[in-house]
């Protein structure tokens, strides 16, 4: 059974919240021990060791918006199979190269059509709202998928703090970019950095839209977009900007990196849609990462299975044209 309905998952394979926190505490103990050794080594070799943010546990609460009944992708696969072009184009590159991303101190600038430009410190953002555990399906435009237990709160909570003006129709996200740290970005001469993404205001205000600070109950690893990123489970992965430094409220549809790069391949909306193929491959099915080869292939769902929550945003729109 390689195509058609997704294979039934025995309940024994679904990681429960308790299980993964038990797993977390065990892992943190081991990692803590290793980190102590590594820090001692680093301190002995450098006078001023570079600030590397080790993942720390986050205080979280459950969320009704979490996706249930899916087998979680392992932390190892989530952190070693990434697209983060600033750190290289191969899936394994970001895990190797993202160590230098300076995630502290970190601020997020809010500008554009707002009552007053603001700057938020990452520590304040972490405390703005209770952090929720939200499991979401993640569908990459390259036809692979994962199930990831993210940690964050709805972006709408943050937007309320920004006081956008009525003229703000779109919101743009800019990622951190420093060519000295992210030297791999230059491998692709077609991309103009920093990475830019955007949403219509109503999409940004949808409760599913997650301002994300962690995964598996801990702060985000660098290669997954530390210290703060977007997660939009009904859109292809590249819509979810990583390592955000600027949030800009704008009147007109902002330029977005992949849409600029190849407008016929990557639309502004980029909603997961099995009926609109990528010019180079079909979007009808996907490969679930981390499963055995015979169980990977599964049917792609409209809006990645989040139709009930988001379909109304696109009422009356031709999604073949506005792909």
């Amino acid at each position, binding site marked *: 059974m*390689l*195509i*058609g309905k997704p294979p039934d998952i025995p309940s024994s394979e679904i990681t429960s919240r308790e299980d993964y926190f038990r797993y977390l505490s065990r892992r943190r103990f081991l990692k803590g021990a290793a980190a102590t050794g590594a820090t001692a080594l680093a301190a002995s070799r450098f006078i001023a060791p570079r600030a590397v943010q080790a993942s720390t546990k986050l205080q979280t609460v459950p969320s009704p918006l979490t996706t249930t009944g899916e087998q979680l992708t392992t932390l190892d*696969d989530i952190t*070693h*199979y990434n697209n983060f*072009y600033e750190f290289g*184009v*191969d*899936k394994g590159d970001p895990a190797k190269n993202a160590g230098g991303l300076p995630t502290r101190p970190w601020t997020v600038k809010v500008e554009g059509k707002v009552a007053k430009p603001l700057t938020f410190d990452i520590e304040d953002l972490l405390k703005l709202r209770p952090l929720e555990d939200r499991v979401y399906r993640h569908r990459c435009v*390259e036809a*692979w998928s994962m199930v990831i237990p993210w940690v964050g709160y709805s972006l709408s909570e943050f937007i309320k703090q920004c006081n956008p003006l009525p003229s703000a129709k779109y919101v743009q996200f800019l990622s951190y970019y420093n060519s000295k740290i992210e030297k791999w970005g230059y*491998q*692709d001469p*077609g*991309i103009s950095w920093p990475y830019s993404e955007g949403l219509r205001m109503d999409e940004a205000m949808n409760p599913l839209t997650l301002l994300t600070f962690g995964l598996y109950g801990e702060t985000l690893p660098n290669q997954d977009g530390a210290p703060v990123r977007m997660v939009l489970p009904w859109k292809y992965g590249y819509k979810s900007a990583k390592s955000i430094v600027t949030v800009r409220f704008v009147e007109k549809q902002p330029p977005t990196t992949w849409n600029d*790069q*190849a407008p016929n391949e990557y639309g502004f909306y980029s909603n997961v849609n099995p009926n609109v*193929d990528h*010019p*180079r*491959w*079909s979007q*009808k*099915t996907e*490969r679930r*990462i*981390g*499963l*055995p*080869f*015979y169980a*990977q*292939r599964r049917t792609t769902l409209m809006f990645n299975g989040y139709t009930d929550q988001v379909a109304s945003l696109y009422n009356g729109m031709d999604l073949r044209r506005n792909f």
Partner: protein
Amino acid sequence: MKRTTLITLKTLTWIACLSVAGRLVWGMVTNDLGPDPSAAIAFATGKATIWLLAISLAITPLRRLSPRLNWLIKFRRLFGLFAFFYATLHMLTYVALYSGFSVAAMESDIAKRRFITMGVAAYLLLVPLALTSTTWAIRKLGGKNWNRLHKLVYAAAICGVIHYWWQVKTGVITPLTITLVLAVLLLARPVTAWLQRRKARAAVTA
């Protein structure tokens, strides 16, 4: 070359050629093919195909370097057939793991996706070569016709490399090495032919 040396070398070649498939089968059984096993299988079989094709194409230019390397010809068919073996596995990977045995999906892929069209073309070019690889077929066709037919291998190699470039995403340059290797091997033919002609002419005028 001594018979025992030949047998030893052939055995080693078989082991080396089968090692890729062996590693994949082991990885399938132990579920240890990385985060994306389908992609790992597709990549490994495709890479084995193009490299084995390159090795089989390297034999003639190498033999021209020195008559002492003439024995290499005994290995060409082996490499060619192993290239076809991996090309077949590569095709099966696509049919089973990517299209999910759906004829409709395959039809639309071949019609719409140029890298798949090109890959299928490369494979179809290899089929008659594999079918006529037996000594009986060579005798039946006659050396001249057989040689002419087997020139298709150049077209297959070029299609294979284009298929590779069209498959990878923008910014990925992994197909560069094999492209350069094949370019050298294909260019080696006219160059060595020209050198031989010049030597012959020099011999005549002398």
